[in-house]
């Protein structure tokens, strides 16, 4: 097997236009370390590792691999040196099988491929790895956890001995994450590989990492062994000040009348199978109903049906007692706001500007449009400027394309648009996915604020802590059906966990 290398990045600086994404950052990663890279969104973690991998050309910086200087101008050079990267998104080609993906990425193919021999070779390789994935399944048919395992296995298959992981567990369940990380940890302690991981999860840092490097706004804050750090210190290093602003006080208030009623709602998924089956649920004014569950149990399809992205197969949705079919006029009339997951894909037009995206709900009403036909730019830009200010959206300006914003800032921009209308019904899905602490606290506070002023909130989240923290009432979805419904005050976490697992 290979031996783990050490990696030192010295004096990295990278500018995008006037903004310094990295400012003289130096990190030393010991051989065989499990090294965490912490920082808020936009702190420069991804930029740093992309420079190291040759995706970006750094303006300044020197790379030492095993204490020898190397030049990495292109990802292929990084690969040849044994550096590999695993991303938050998947890079395996969906329409090809695992075997085809692995063999292809090797790059040194013979003119005609001996699939029998390749299959044997991969099978015997999988006997040496702690977890495996099905060899002949098209990657499109694998679950998220299996895909991420496949990504990591492919790096090992390609004999990469320095892995850079960019939030590798964000798509995994806690159990899957533990399985993957335990294995990787063992490979590092055996001295086979060195790992640099970008993460937001302190639990994973505490359990698996040896050392932590913290970046803030492109600057190095420090590198320390994990044993010297506690969560408060790490959080302070990341955000630069004690973030005491926790969730807004929830007012005690009795829930009002039902705003949203789901009557036997069934929704099919993209393949045509029922993802949501005969769902009955009421959401009342002034309460947050949290839908817990492992992803893939129908939550996505439910939100898409409510947002008008997917038709219901059977059943009805009622808002304020009227049948609701998720059309734009209905959403305006009933004051429905929606913050779906992956807002850049589901709630934005990526190529349009921040101002235009913020105006998507109101561009055809005064003052943006005096008559529903002509559009007026300046009120749009004015509204956007106010909301950018109020929701602290970090953007070069209202006219910048929203595609260029970081994930957390896209989330803030969409939240600004959706909450500014003071809706009666707020539908939120995984609002804090992949965001840093400050952003998480702020977004959660805004959701509770909406509830406090009397909005009915449907919160779909894969993060059980978020559900427990925010909800007045908790329901668990399993296999498209309601597996459990309980008051948050009386919630039994064990029972919720069992319901999520289908017991």
């Amino acid at each position, binding site marked *: 097997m290979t031996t783990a290398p050490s990696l030192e990045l010295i004096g990295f600086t990278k500018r995008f236009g006037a903004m310094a994404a990295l400012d003289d950052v130096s990190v030393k990663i010991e051989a065989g370390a499990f090294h965490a890279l912490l920082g808020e969104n936009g702190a420069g973690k991804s930029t740093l590792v992309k420079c190291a991998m040759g995706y970006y050309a750094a303006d300044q910086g020197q790379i030492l691999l095993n204490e020898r200087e190397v030049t990495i101008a292109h*990802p*292929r050079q990084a*690969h040849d040196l044994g550096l590999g990267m695993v991303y938050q998104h998947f*890079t395996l*080609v*969906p*329409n*090809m099988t695992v075997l*085809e993906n692995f*063999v*292809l*990425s*090797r*790059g040194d*193919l*013979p*003119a*005609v*491929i001996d*699939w029998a021999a390749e299959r044997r070779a991969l099978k015997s390789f999988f006997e040496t790895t702690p977890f495996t994935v099905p060899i002949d399944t098209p990657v*499109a048919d694998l679950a998220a956890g299996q895909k991420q395992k496949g990504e990591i296995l492919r790096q090992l298959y390609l004999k990469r001995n320095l892995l850079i992981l960019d939030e590798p567990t964000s798509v995994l369940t806690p159990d899957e994450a533990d399985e993957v990380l335990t294995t990787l940890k063992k490979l590092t302690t055996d001295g086979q590989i060195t790992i640099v991981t970008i993460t937001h999860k302190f639990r994973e840092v505490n359990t698996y990492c040896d050392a932590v490097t913290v970046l803030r706004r492109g600057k190095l804050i420090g590198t320390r062994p994990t044993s010297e750090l506690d969560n408060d210190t790490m959080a302070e290093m990341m955000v630069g000040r004690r973030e005491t602003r926790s969730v807004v006080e929830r007012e005690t208030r009795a829930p009002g009348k039902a705003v949203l009623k789901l009557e036997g709602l069934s929704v099919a998924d*993209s*393949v*045509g199978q029922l993802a949501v089956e005969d769902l009955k649920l009421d959401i009342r004014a002034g309460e947050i109903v949290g839908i817990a569950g492992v992803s893939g149990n129908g939550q996505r399809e439910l939100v898409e049906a409510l947002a008008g992205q997917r*038709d219901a197969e059977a059943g009805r949705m009622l808002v304020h007692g009227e049948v609701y079919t998720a059309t734009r006029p209905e959403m305006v009339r009933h004051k429905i706001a929606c913050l779906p997951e992956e807002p850049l894909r589901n709630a934005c037009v990526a190529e349009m500007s921040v101002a235009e995206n913020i105006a998507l709900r109101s561009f055809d009403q005064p003052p943006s449009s005096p008559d529903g036909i002509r559009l007026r730019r300046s009120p749009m830009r004015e509204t956007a400027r106010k909301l950018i200010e109020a929701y602290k959206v970090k953007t070069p300006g209202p006219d910048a394309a929203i595609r260029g914003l970081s994930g957390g800032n896209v989330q803030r921009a969409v939240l600004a648009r959706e909450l500014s209308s003071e809706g009666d019904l707020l539908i939120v899905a995984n609002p804090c996915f992949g965001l840093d602490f400050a952003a998480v606290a702020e977004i959660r506070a805004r959701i509770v604020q909406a509830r406090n002023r009397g909005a009915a909130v449907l919160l779909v989240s894969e993060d059980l802590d978020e559900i427990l923290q925010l909800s007045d009432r908790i329901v668990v979805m399993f296999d498209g059906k309601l597996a459990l419904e309980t008051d948050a005050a009386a919630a039994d976490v064990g029972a919720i966990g069992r319901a999520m697992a289908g017991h």
Partner: protein
Amino acid sequence: MDGTDLGLWGVPLAMLAGAIRVSTPFIFVSLGECLTERSGRINLGLEGTLMMGAMTAYGTALLSGSPWLGVLVAAGVGLLLGALHAALCQLPKVNDIATGIGLMLFGTGLAFFLGKPYIQPKAPNLGALDLGAWSSISQVQQALQVNPLFLIGIALAFALAWALKNTRWGLIVRLAGESVDAALAIGASVGRVRLLATAVGGAFAGIGGAFLSLYYPGSWNEGLSSGQGLMAVALVIFARWDPIRCLWASLLFGAAGAISPALQSVGVTQGYYLFSAAPYVLTLALMIATCSPARSLRGAPGELGAVK
């Protein structure tokens, strides 16, 4: 016609004959488009390539006396047109749909313009193999007169399917079609792969054109293709980008095209033109049935976008 009267059996027999005769251009064009689209590019210009192939094949056969030389020239012209499409698409901010439509009109127009002198004279035809010699029924003998290009087309479908799965070349074509990033990561030049795939796809379409003018219908005129090149492009989607399914779909379209003459041969003369429209209706019906937006297009190459 001194054949036995087969009664209604004549209809399926005539459709089989039609499937064999009419399907060949569909096979070649759809395989060409299949290859092109698997590399991540759409070439809507194959209708024009088909016409250029038909015209140049006919002209070459007429002037040289060798129909097979005509086939070769048609393939060469197709190769050049395909390469032209690929080269244009590689320019920045060029849309492959728009370029394809442009080249379709260009190819058709150029074929009409250069083909004017070939409308009257009769060029030598590609021969046929008599695979029906065992039968005493003349209709069966006629139906089983098979042109070698048909057999080559079948072989090509299987060869292409095998190559896409088992060769380095085939895998890199698929990778270029599925994920540009992944292709770049292994050092493949996506532009070159697509250039080659589009050019070879064009050559296939050119051969399909040669079949039209040199075997069936076997003459050169401006209404020769009547949209077969475009139908073949639609057929690739129906066949889910699988060469073998392209073959079956082509046979189906060929059989549908033969409904009308088949019915006429048994005395059903009403609605001749209506039945002639069968392949077009079939195209529409299949597209509606198989390409509903509610279902995901499984098998569609990942990089195949309508708009880049």
